């Protein structure tokens, strides 16, 4: 095993003696970093606290005189509303499908970028281009592509049995969801590929050669050597992308404006706060969105930990 994969010594109880000079340096370091910490708290904790406070009011921006303290009523309204749960389902569906597809395609791209010898730089750049494009721009591009009037999707793929010359991609729920997911996958697969490429480059060539000498097929090497050794990188990639996908907003805003029941939780929050100017209700949604992101992150980390433990048990 390579040295990079070895854990540090487990004994952390014995603290090394700290010299006076180190103490002084630590103190100076803390003093220097303190303004930045205070600033960070101001710009992150204050808005969160403000949202929590506002969520306890019935408060509309264009009717400031009608502001009224209503306790947790906004949360009750949100959590008992079918729209909230429908949008949560949409968001989770988009997240699961796009991350799953991106994981597979991203891994394939990572393999290509890792192994390719000829025109490596050109290939890597080409694969990464979609990620460099602003999401709103790519959403517009895909909206035009799927457009009934001037899009190419219908013209190019009308030989498929479920696509006709006049398929209205934004005319019903599943077609619209498909178009949104395609744009999301196209845009962010390179990010997944990039993270997986980092993991791939950490897999020891020695182990792969040893497996090959032992007669392992390409498939066996992939499942028994490469993927287990990339587990941490895969977890990071899935975690980052899942949280990213859970915030999906731009594509939906551009492509359907939430029509055909394609709204996500972020979009619902946007509409309450910005369009309806319901600061109280919208803040309650923001707080719930924040909590659900925390829950999601915890679940993914926990899920992978369980896998790691079971893998060790099997091993």
């Amino acid at each position, binding site marked *: 095993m390579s040295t990079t994969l070895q854990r540090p010594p487990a004994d952390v109880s014995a603290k090394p003696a700290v010299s006076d000079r180190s103490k002084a340096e630590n103190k100076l370091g803390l003093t220097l970093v303190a303004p930045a910490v205070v600033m960070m708290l101001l710009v992150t904790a204050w808005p969160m606290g403000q949202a929590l406070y506002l969520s306890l009011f019935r408060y509309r921006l264009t009717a400031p005189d009608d502001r009224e303290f209503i306790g947790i009523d906004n949360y009750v309204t949100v959590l008992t509303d079918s729209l909230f749960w429908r949008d949560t389902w949409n968001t989770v569906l988009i997240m699961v499908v796009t991350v799953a597809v991106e994981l597979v395609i991203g891994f394939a791209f990572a393999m290509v970028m890792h192994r390719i010898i000829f025109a490596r730089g050109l290939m890597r750049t080409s694969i990464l281009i979609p990620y460099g494009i602003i999401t709103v721009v790519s959403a517009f591009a895909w909206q035009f592509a799927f457009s009934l009037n001037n899009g190419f999707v219908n013209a190019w793929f009308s030989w498929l049995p479920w696509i006709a010359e006049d398929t*209205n991609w934004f*005319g019903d729920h599943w077609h619209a969801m498909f178009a949104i997911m395609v744009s999301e996958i196209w845009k962010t697969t390179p990010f997944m590929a990039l993270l997986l490429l980092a993991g791939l480059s950490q897999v020891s060539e020695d182990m792969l050669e040893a497996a090959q000498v032992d007669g392992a097929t390409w498939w066996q090497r992939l499942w028994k050597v490469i993927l287990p050794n990339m587990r941490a990188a895969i977890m990071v990639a899935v975690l980052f992308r899942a949280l990213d996908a859970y915030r999906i907003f731009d594509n939906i805003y551009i492509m359907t404006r939430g*029509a*055909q029941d394609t709204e996500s939780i972020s979009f619902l929050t946007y*509409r309450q706060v910005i369009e309806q*100017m319901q600061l109280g209700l919208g803040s309650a949604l923001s707080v719930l969105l924040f909590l659900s992101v925390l829950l999601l992150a915890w679940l993914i980390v926990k899920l992978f930990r369980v896998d790691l433990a079971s893998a060790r048990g099997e091993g």
Partner: protein
Amino acid sequence: MAPRSSTRPRGRPRSRRIAGSVASLALASSLLAACSGDSGKPELVWYINPDAGGQAAVAEKCSTDEYTVTTQVLPQDASQQRIQLSRRLAAEDPSIDLMSLDPPFTAEFADAGFLADVPQDARAQLEEQGTFQGAMDAATWEDKLVVFPFWSNTQVLWYRKSFVDKTDLDMSQPVTWDQIIQTAADNGGKLGVQANKYEGYSVWINALVSGAGGQLVENADKGVDLDLTIDSAQGEDAAKVIEDLASSEAAPADLSVSNEGTAGSTFGGDAGSFMVNWTYIFHNYDETDPDVADDIGYTRYPQTVEGEESRPPYGGIGIGVSAFSDNKDLALEAAACLVEPENQGINAEMTGNMPASTAGYDYPALAELYPDDLRQLFQESVDAAAPRSVTPYWSDISSSLQSTWHPPASVNQDTPPESQDFTQQVLEGGRLL
């Protein structure tokens, strides 16, 4: 090697650099002073909806030795215009002096205290120039005139003369929605409407309900306790029209995402037959498709119910003066100038957005651009138009309509009661929108 700090940078000597910096500072502070309006004449900023240059031309014309009117362009979408303006006005931003306001949002802005009242003498001027009653009503909140009606838009029924010639429909008589849907379907035509999930769809629903003799809201002056009347026989008549079109061969494939632009494309295409759309569409094909331009016919907006007079949609723009403007009096003076009949005419000539007054219609260039009978039809339609309910809660009502009536293919006889129930809950704060 000497440390970096001890070396003198190359280039200009230090004294000249200091002089340069001082000069730059002086210039910057003089520019800042100019921006703040402390010196020179004040700049009145008018936030306008995007157009073909009509409002900018009028702004230039109304700039005087005392002040300059400049324009800033708002987003294309009416809802986005409302969002941008209201958020800044809620923060009492003094940099907005004048704004172009869509009629359905006037009540909301006035109720929130964002708008300065129109002075009595300006009101007299508007009445004298024959401002349409519909425009005055849409500009009034709680018996006070709060915006200056600038242009008044309405929809008419546009049709392709070549298409109608193939049928036995008599366009000189009032036609119904049922007739045009049937005629289009029977003759391979597609009907252009606005049925995307946006304000334009609410406009259509409102026109259909009003055309059946009903309205969406009663007692709007009761604020959030207004009475919803979507669940009515007239609501059912409106739902029937949408249901009939959505299930008909006359429905364009993009019906559920159609807007003014796509309806125009459908109308100009091979299957173009009928279309309901605003006044500016008349010159839409002049450059791009002259054959279509020659083929355009027009008549009164279709009837929801046979024999019941149609109530075309009412749109337009009123100019509001911000209550938080640093130059409120000057802005009110400028607004009165902007809506003078000649300026309404200039704007109409450049943009196709028709004047809000009879005197504005007298602007000579309009007679060259629009046939007499069409100008007559526009004015008659504006007079008969059904404005959207004047209430500060229109945006909630409109969004609720869009949520419950979209997509058009889902509309049936259960839609009006469901829509009313949902909207009521939204107004009470018990539902998300």
